């Protein structure tokens, strides 16, 4: 079995605010392998973006990683424990951008409008590879833009981000993320702001780049269609937790967690009957200050077991030799049986 390049286990990132503690990420565990794509899926507020930011240690105050570990195992080198490194340390800055890179959600706001796109890509290159002079870095930047399919890269390099179309801007963002050949690429909703046709182009590009460089890709999205198209492994998040994990085929064809099942049912599809009612998930995502007791999904769950789900928090239990995992009492028979016998006593 391959060794994972990045292992996140029981990650907890909390935001300490005057009104209370927001548990943005509250027990996220998953593994990422070189050359494979992990899809991190969930609705807004489930903590998927904060998980990505935690890995790169760029969580803004008052957020803080309070527990868990993020282990980065570069090939032919010592494993690094990212949670132990100070966020501003030299070692962390070496990792950030060079080993693990992030494509941000909004290409419009993630480029500075005061510098040309080229200027920003060159800066990224020269931060990590000080041996290169300006001309060499510029050559490299042009090459990168060409690689990601930007037409006339020599001219586009001297443009500002607002002069580029959404698709080109996202391509430039990818070029910048690829500047130092990262081993792990995190793409946070890379296509959410784009049209479907442009989305198809960008997804295709990410796929081919991954094959070319054998990168590990973490694809964060709320779009189950994108996940089905791209991912090898999937982790489903709900209210800061990974509630189910498995291969893409298992998640879509044999989902275990009621949330995963409900989520899959509620997606409108181009292949379904027109003008039909969609099955929905009752209620809405709870407010972060107001997390339900017990299993976070129990107030919206159809299969909620009275006396168990609202009182106990299910843990992520691995199945099928570790490749799959689910955090739901429906699949933890033993626990329920002992609990119910106590209940009846």
């Amino acid at each position, binding site marked *: 079995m391959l060794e994972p390049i990045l292992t996140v286990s029981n990650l907890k990132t909390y935001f300490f605010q005057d009104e209370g503690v927001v548990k943005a990420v509250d027990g996220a565990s998953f593994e990422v392998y070189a050359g494979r794509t992990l899809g991190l899926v969930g*609705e*807004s507020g489930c903590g998927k973006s904060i998980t990505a930011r935690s890995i790169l240690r760029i969580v803004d105050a008052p957020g803080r990683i309070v527990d868990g570990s993020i282990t980065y195992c570069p090939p032919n080198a010592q494993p690094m424990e990212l949670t132990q490194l100070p966020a501003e340390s030299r070692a962390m800055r070496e990792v950030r951008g060079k080993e693990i890179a992030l494509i941000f959600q909004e290409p419009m706001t993630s480029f500075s409008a005061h510098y040309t796109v080229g200027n920003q890509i060159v800066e990224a290159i020269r931060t990590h590879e000080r041996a290169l002079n300006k001309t060499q870095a510029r050559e490299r930047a042009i090459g990168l833009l060409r690689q990601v399919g930007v037409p006339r890269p020599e001219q586009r390099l001297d443009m500002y981000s607002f002069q580029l*179309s*959404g*698709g*080109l801007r996202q391509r430039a963002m990818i070029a910048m993320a690829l500047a130092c050949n990262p081993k792990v690429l995190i793409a946070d909703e890379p296509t959410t702001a784009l*049209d*479907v*046709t*442009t*989305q*198809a*182009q960008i*997804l*295709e590009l990410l796929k081919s780049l991954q094959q070319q460089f054998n990168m590990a890709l973490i694809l964060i999205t*709320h*779009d*189950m*269609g*994108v*996940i*089905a*198209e791209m*991912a090898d492994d999937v982790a489903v998040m709900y209210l800061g937790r990974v509630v189910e994990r498995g291969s*893409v*085929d298992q998640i*879509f*064809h044999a989902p275990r967690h009621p949330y995963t099942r*409900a*989520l*899959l049912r*509620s*997606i*409108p*599809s*181009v*292949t*379904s009957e*027109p*003008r*039909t*009612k*969609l*099955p*929905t*998930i009752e209620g*809405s*995502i709870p*407010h972060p200050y107001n997390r339900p007791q017990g299993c976070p999904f129990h107030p919206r769950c159809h299969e909620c077991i009275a006396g168990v789900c609202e009182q106990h928090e299910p843990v992520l239990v691995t199945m099928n030799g570790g490749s799959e995992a689910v955090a739901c009492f429906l699949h933890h028979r033993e626990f329920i049986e002992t609990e119910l016998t106590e209940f009846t006593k």
Partner: protein
Amino acid sequence: MTNIEKTNSVNSAVRPAMDGVHSVLLDVRGLKMHFPIRQGLLQRVVGYVRAVDDVNFTIQSGETLALVGESGCGKTTTARCILRAYKPTAGEILFRADGDMVDVASVPRAQLRPVRRNMQMIFQDPYASLNPRMTLADIVGEPLLVNGMTNRQQRNDRVAELLRLVGMRSEYMQRYPHAFSGGQRQRIGIARALALHPKLVVCDEAVSALDVSVQAQILNLLLELQSKLGLTYLFVAHDLSVVKHISDRVAVMYVGKLVELAPTARVFSAPKHPYTEALLSAVPIADPRRRSQRIILEGDVADPSNPPSGCYFHPRCRYAIERCRMETPALREIEPGQYAACHRADELTLIGAVTHS
């Protein structure tokens, strides 16, 4: 008389044959919206952005027409022209208000209010479209106040009724929008739009900003309200899978023009325009066993201020022939009720969304 007959004959091309003229609620004829590009010291007009360029369609009373296309194709501009948020450059927008057909495009500003009462809009972003300093009672009650319901008690009763209609508790009336989630806010926006018993509701990307679980709830609510209140929807959206769940007919736009107009099932199963085919194939399908051989469109959407010659889609079309470069295709009936603007619509067999087999 002859004049009317003439315009009718032009437009019969885009009206579904099955429906009688009497049930037409909205009839858009030759709609054009050109925005001038000004440059230089004197701000001279150097060109025009043809945001909407000769669009024709009708909406029957009680039906849902979806307007789909990529960003910048003019779908939102079309919707705004219909609401007269913009005054169109040319064309007629005939709307049946209180029995008579009124041309919204040419009504004087002073007489707009009674027309607008019959057409309302649901906005995309539920966070930006509600005033954070107003309570729900004020937000939903404002259109009532503006249209002459000055009695507060009467107004609040109507607001309570509206909130219940969209599935919210009327006790929430004195709260502010920040207390509600995205889905609930969108319900508030819908309640506001329904306050004046409109006939036509324009939904501009009304569910695009919502999470999938909430999106399904709002789509179901819109379907339910339509059957309960007999509403007519113009549903502007870019998400084809959402469109499929709500619309009777679909109009596909590309660079300011309609390229296809057909009943929903036809658009998805047997599209007649290569752009529709490409658009359908680009939608990711939530099934890893059916990773599609998608058609990747090269390049970007054409620039509406400097469109290509002939068919605007020809530089990106994989079926383009010499004729497409030279001649602009007109929207014509290919199959009964199905219209497409493509020279090769008759000979091409295009692939729709793959259905479950």
